[in-house]
């Protein structure tokens, strides 16, 4: 388990990183926390010509509160984000999801951007990005562009990032509604394993207790994390009674086309998806309701 030979470069700035990407293109893999990439390299499943280390780029490590969103630098450690109290208040779903990402030890190294760009369809942060509609800022030597989550995740371990681009920051929408609740859960064999199925939901209640805004999604159920905006819309205007929650959750599961592996058949995944989607919607509802 030694990586195949590669060139290593440590970038001191975003500009420097972009220059390497511009020059070497597809041959480059960017390493930040390395919690997924390095084992894959050690098993020679990934063989980059160049390993571009962005850990020293201070400009990629920040948490900034904007009016409608929280911006997080790509190389910000997951544990830093997890411990940020203000962020937890603004984007609670992100904090809830982070508790499920690997273990404390891996979160001390793993980064927000690394998990997003790795784009594992079972991973927690890509699911939250899909559910909340996060925006990814991609930088190249020439320009920067912003890509919405639904366009960003294009397949298993595949994103809209071009070979000459580096993820610079992720913008997580913060909901302004006072009575907002969120929930994240997943089923894995052991805590910290890749989820067989994960589910995330965030919703807001009006003063009358009716749902005024809703979003939810499922991980591990397809080629990318899935969000269900149309089904979520069915929740809006309701009092989130059990029947409607179960019906929406069931439809979300039915619309998905999961695969089978050693630990979960497609039938099991679809069943779990219905159970977990209902659980997170109900839990988010309860949390929002507690802010009466």
């Amino acid at each position, binding site marked *: *388990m030694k990586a195949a030979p590669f060139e290593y470069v440590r970038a001191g700035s975003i500009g420097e990183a972009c220059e390497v990407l511009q020059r070497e293109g597809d041959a480059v893999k960017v390493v930040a926390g390395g919690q997924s990439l390095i084992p894959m390299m050690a098993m*020679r499943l990934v063989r980059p010509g160049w390993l571009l280390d962005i850990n020293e780029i201070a400009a990629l490590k920040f948490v900034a509160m904007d009016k409608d969103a929280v911006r997080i630098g790509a190389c910000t450690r997951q544990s830093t984000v997890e411990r940020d109290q203000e962020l937890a208040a603004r984007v609670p779903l992100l904090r809830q999801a982070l508790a499920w990402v690997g273990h404390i030890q891996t979160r001390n190294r793993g980064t927000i951007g690394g998990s997003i760009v790795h784009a594992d369809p079972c991973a927690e942060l890509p699911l939250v990005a899909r559910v909340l509609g996060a925006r990814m800022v991609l930088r190249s030597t020439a320009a920067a562009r912003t890509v919405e989550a639904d366009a960003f995740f294009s397949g298993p371990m595949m994103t809209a990032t071009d070979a000459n681009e580096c993820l610079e920051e992720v913008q997580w929408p913060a909901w302004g509604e006072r009575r907002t609740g969120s929930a994240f859960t997943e*089923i894995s*064999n052991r805590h*910290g394993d890749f989820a067989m199925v994960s589910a995330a939901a965030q919703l807001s209640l009006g003063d009358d207790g009716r749902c005024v805004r809703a979003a939810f999604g499922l991980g591990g159920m397809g080629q990318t994390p899935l969000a269900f905006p149309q089904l979520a819309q069915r929740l809006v205007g309701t009092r989130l009674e059990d029947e409607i929650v179960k019906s929406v959750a069931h439809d979300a599961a039915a619309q998905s086309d999961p695969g089978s592996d*050693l630990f979960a058949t497609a039938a099991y995944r679809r069943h779990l998806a219905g159970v977990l989607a209902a659980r997170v919607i109900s839990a988010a509802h309860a949390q929002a309701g507690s802010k009466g």
Partner: protein
Amino acid sequence: MTTQFRYIGKHRRTKEDPRFVTGRGRYAADIALPGTKHVALVASPHPSARIVSISTDAALAAPGVLTVLTGDEFCARTDPLYVGVDAPKVTRYALARGVVRYAGEWVAAVVADTRALAEDAAELVEVEYESLPFVIDPEAALAPGTHLIHPDHGTNVLYRRKFVWGPVEEAFAKADHQLAFRATWGRSSTVPIETFGVTARWDPVAELLDVWASIQMPKYPDQTARALRLPGNAVRVHFDVDVGGSYGVKRGIKHTVLVGYLAKKLGVPVRLIEDRLENMRGGDMHGPDRFFDMQVAFDRDGTIRGMKMRAVDDVGAYAGRSPLQLGKPVGAICGPYQIHAIEYEPTSVMTNKTPQEAVRGFGQSPTNFAIERAMDRVARQLGMDRIELRRKNLIRRDQFPYLIPSGSSYDSGDYHTVLDKALEASGYPALVRMRDEARLAGRLAGIGVATCLEPSGGNASFELLFNPKNETTTWMDSCLVRVDLSGSITGVMGTSSSGQGHETLVSTVVGEILERDPATIRVIHADSLNALPSNSPVGSRMAIMLGGAAAGAARKIRDALVAIAAHNFECSPEDLEYRDGNVGIKGAPSKMLSWDQLVEIAHRKFHKMPPGLDPGLQAQFVWEVPTGGGVPTQDGRVQMYPCYAFEAHVVYVEIDPDTGKPSIRKYVCGHDCGVMISPDIVHGMTYGGIAHGIGASLYEKFAYTEDGQLASGTFMDYLIPSSMEVPDIHIVDHCTPSPLTTFGQKGSGEAGYLGAPAAIANAINDALDPLGASIDTLPMSHLALWETITKATKM
């Protein structure tokens, strides 16, 4: 009982912990000899294939490469590895020759300046294969006309025999009831953090091969020398290498012969440290993979009259000692119960999977699982309480020594009391209420109970039983105790340790006998050329065997000191009193020779030595396994291990009915291994054993795909429980001393693991009981539980 001891049974700092906790362990990977070269392996991607050709040219031309070794050269110049049963045509070498028999089997070894360069070059070795038929399922492997793993052997069966002990057919004919079921134990293992590693160096002048390895293996130096066609004294194994986990699997004999050959051929030190992928796939360390066809005959009052057990074990593509893992359970084939008639049909079968190696308990934990599932099924069929059924059939404490039908005598025990203590510690009535309330609330909740034995004091009786050509009737162990001129004590043991705390064991025992503080006693590991005859720390034997040997040697020292004093006081030894290492005349405190004075006489003052006593102060003791030395009768009865520890597990689980996810909410283990020399070490072993059992029952499996590939070859797929899955564990001690051992101690190296899978399976089944569902296949994965629940609720 323990109060009569000064050091034994006390909570004292272990000898080893300071070294390990401060990162000063010295493991195989810490052996860094100047000029060492590194091995990487080329593994077969096919489960079964003919090797058409191997081209090494590109690999040899790669940077830093010294050589590329293939099976043709290696197998011609070394001898095949030891086979535990009479199957001489099932030849096994470190490198495949002509055919490969499992995916991951080593085909070539590349030696280079660094491991990374060796891996680069290994990718350049071109092997052309021609696929052959393969068989992965053990029942398919038993079917006539199936693909033969070793055609020269003529069958895929390595060993099969039907033992009948007692009036089995009569018991089945007369019993009120019978039941039959299959219990299946999944292919799991002990998977240590440290993979196997070995460094070898050949000295051409001394003609000596030095070996440093992460090893836990009986006869390892001898087997290494034989395979390399060297005299036994041309291999020196350094037993002072720390071993980062084993519980059976650290055998590494094929690795060692390969590295030894390369070191000799190349004239440089050569090292092979398996990476995780090699370890899981080609390290030959998978554990039992076994199903049991069980039949039980019993009366309506719950008396078990007879049992029939057919055990089919899939050992993979080659045999080492693995078939013998069906033999060890013969020594406790009826568990802790009075069952007078037993039929046992062990069948060892080969398939195109990674070979099996010894795992904690050497086949006993799967057997205990099958027996304990049978007990619960009997209770369920009778509508009888599971605990009452056990109480009715458990051997009573007034029945020891108790001879079981297969020929072993159990030394001692108080099973009813240990079970009662475990139940009490679990708050059993409250636990039942908790379960029943959970059920009323719509949850799946269950309590599991298992009462199991840990045979200990390992001898080799199953080798004779399973192989008439093998006449091994001794499995001795030894210790040398030396007191130097300064009066310091050193104990010398003759094997490696793989985490069992032998330094603590020897120092405690020697300190106890000599009445000297164990903290001042040093314990070292001799190398194999220096070592007294010893086997290794397997079969839960060292507390008994090394503990007994160390005590025996210390007693000789003590006797010598008393003899010196008697000579100088011109009195009889009976008139003397030994206290704290000093020897004085009884009733005359001023008449005393101190430890220092006695030691000085022994080392310097020959004129004060009694005649016949050697100068210097050292003693050795070689101990044979108590009750050992017997040979099997015609019908296969033999005394196996001497001592029998007992454990009673009480477990509470809940299963999420919507997802199949189990969670263990309470875990109590009542445990009796006689006198505990170091309770902290015993408890540590037991905690770990239970965690291991949780893995075997719920998580861990070396799964194979239909096309013969290992599907769980990393820790992403081979699921070892973490601290998040292992609950708080409460251990309740009890002490029934063994009459056969020095201090009344029994073994405990397999504690917890021998009963945990059975208890958890029983708890899960109790939880499923209201649905009318059951599951008897391990591991009980989330998926398997969900499918079981779904099937039951849809019916």
